[in-house]
């Protein structure tokens, strides 16, 4: 990056929603399906068909808007965006151009050790297009309209992002939020989250924006990063050499790592937006919005802050546990029954998450239930069992007999430690009595022998002596020699 330049980036993120039916008709909206099995006269754009909006589509938009702190516009309108493409059955897309459903708002992203606020310009409702398959036949393309009409939300940011890294962080945060809200699985590879990136450059300190170019059809963050870096470099080189950046819509070629114009200027689309006469305004009442607000789950940022500030977890652990809502909620529930949050975090991260990944199951169906886990954590905290005994001996046994109380099982397996003074002192006396030679060497100054005595003590106790108490008492005894 040439010194003295700043890259300015704005995003248009498309989220494909996981509603049951499509945006404007009752076709199945789920992903996949054999070609043209999720279509009807309406999504096929047949003559005489009309759109009818989906209540869940609207509710999801409100949910996302509330989560991002947007203003929910009680009145919003639908417009037609007119253009010809083989996968666009009506020859226009139903979208919201003039009055979108949500305005303003922001999403915080974590960069390095800091937090940056990325402002949202607006969110609007629209429908997806079908799919063209170009590589199956040599001189024909095949059109599958399953995806035509699937509900989308488009989130447009202000040009607040400054690097590919920030874009990555933003997209991760948006994905995480979409999954928390149960509106989309935000999967870029599957296409349920896509982004178009607007890139411009300017000299540091300049207040006006440079000419921006839009890079479309980026379907992985890896490509997005490379595309942004290449494009910023290209624009800076132009400006440095006194040339002008021309406004263009670009395509990124992952093979060459370069961007190139998608359309010539003459072919620039004239979308002829106008209000869709088939759809009167969308009017929401505050009761509808409040009912959605009252059912909002905790949000990723809140959860992360709670984990770091209230539970005292490290940033890394907090982020890991806050990534998926079901894990976060499970962890919060666990921490409601135990104050040992850090130990609980380790337990969940090391033992439960791997199990979850392997079994693709909900944490609540883990063989060892929450009461047993809390009991286990308490035993460890009370020094009644050592960490190693707990996880290497007791844990496997609990997995086999999940109904058992950990305390009872530990007891029966004779794993419980004691900090009983009499018991430990008796053992210390036993050890010292058994090694008089080493005792006199210790008196003469060989202080390192404390470790030997400790080892003997633990061996004799068969691991039952609580190491902390035993160390303290041994030291006391040795100092009194």
């Amino acid at each position: 990056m040439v010194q003295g330049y700043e890259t300015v980036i704005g995003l248009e993120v498309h989220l494909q929603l996981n509603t049951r039916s499509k945006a404007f008709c009752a076709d199945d909206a789920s992903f996949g399906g054999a070609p043209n099995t999720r279509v009807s006269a309406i999504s096929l754009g047949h003559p005489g068909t009309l759109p009818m909006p989906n209540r869940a589509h609207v509710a999801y938009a409100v949910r996302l808007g509330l989560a991002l702190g947007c203003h929910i516009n009680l009145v919003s309108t639908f417009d037609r965006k007119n253009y010809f493409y083989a996968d666009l059955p009506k020859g226009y897309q139903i979208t919201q151009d003039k009055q979108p459903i949500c305005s303003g708002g922001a999403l915080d992203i974590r960069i390095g050790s800091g937090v940056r606020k990325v402002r949202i310009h607006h969110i609007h409702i629209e429908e997806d297009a079908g799919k063209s398959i170009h590589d199956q036949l040599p001189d024909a393309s095949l059109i599958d309209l399953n995806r035509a009409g699937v509900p989308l939300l488009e989130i447009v940011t202000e040009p607040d992002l400054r690097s590919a890294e920030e874009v990555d962080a933003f997209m991760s945060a948006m994905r995480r939020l979409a999954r928390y809200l149960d509106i989309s699985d935000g999967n870029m590879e599957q296409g349920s989250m896509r982004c178009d990136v607007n890139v411009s450059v300017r000299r540091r300190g300049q207040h006006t924006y440079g000419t921006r170019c839009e890079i479309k059809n980026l379907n992985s963050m890896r490509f997005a990063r490379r595309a942004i870096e290449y494009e910023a470099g290209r624009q800076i080189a132009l400006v440095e050499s006194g040339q002008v950046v021309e406004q263009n819509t670009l395509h990124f070629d992952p093979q060459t790592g370069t961007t190139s114009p998608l359309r010539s200027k003459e072919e620039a689309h004239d979308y002829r937006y106008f209000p869709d006469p088939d759809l009167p305004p969308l009017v929401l009442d505050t009761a509808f919005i409040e009912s959605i607000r009252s059912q909002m789950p905790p949000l990723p940022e809140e959860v992360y802050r709670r984990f770091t500030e209230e539970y005292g977890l490290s940033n890394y652990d907090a982020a890991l546990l806050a990534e998926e809502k079901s894990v976060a909620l499970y962890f919060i529930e666990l921490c409601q029954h135990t104050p040992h949050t850090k130990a609980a975090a380790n337990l969940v991260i090391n033992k439960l998450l791997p199990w979850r990944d392997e079994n693709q199951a909900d944490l609540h169906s883990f063989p060892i239930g929450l009461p047993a886990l809390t009991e286990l954590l308490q035993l460890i905290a009370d020094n009644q069992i050592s960490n190693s005994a707990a996880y290497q001996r007791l844990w496997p046994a609990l997995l086999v007999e999940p109904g058992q109380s950990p305390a009872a099982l530990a007891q029966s397996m004779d794993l419980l430690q004691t900090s009983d003074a009499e018991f430990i002192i008796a053992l210390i006396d036993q050890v010292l009595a058994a090694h008089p030679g080493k005792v006199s060497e210790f008196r003469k100054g060989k202080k390192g022998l404390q470790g030997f005595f400790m080892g003997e003590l633990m061996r004799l106790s068969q691991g039952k002596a609580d190491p902390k108490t035993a160390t303290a008492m041994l030291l006391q005894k040795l100092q009194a020699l």
Partner: protein
Amino acid sequence: MQIDEALIFRLEQLTRLELDDAERQELLHDLNHILELVEQMNSLDTTDVAPLAYVNAASTPLRNDVVGPQATPEQALRDAPRAADNCFKVPKVIDL
């Protein structure tokens, strides 16, 4: 604004239509007529008048999110000019 051949060409592009010479001449005439109509409209003061897009001023109803009856691929494709593998077939799309 210019009513000329370039405009007609642009409109043909936008609408995916090709006119013959006679039709182009008539269209030039019609476009000029629209300009006259617009001038007529402009003679009426509409300052502060809200555009009317929906005569019944109702709000749009919403549909419950349930899957309804769909078409089978056979039905969807039955009147397709060309089809293959249960898809609509079009001559190769060159652009991206």
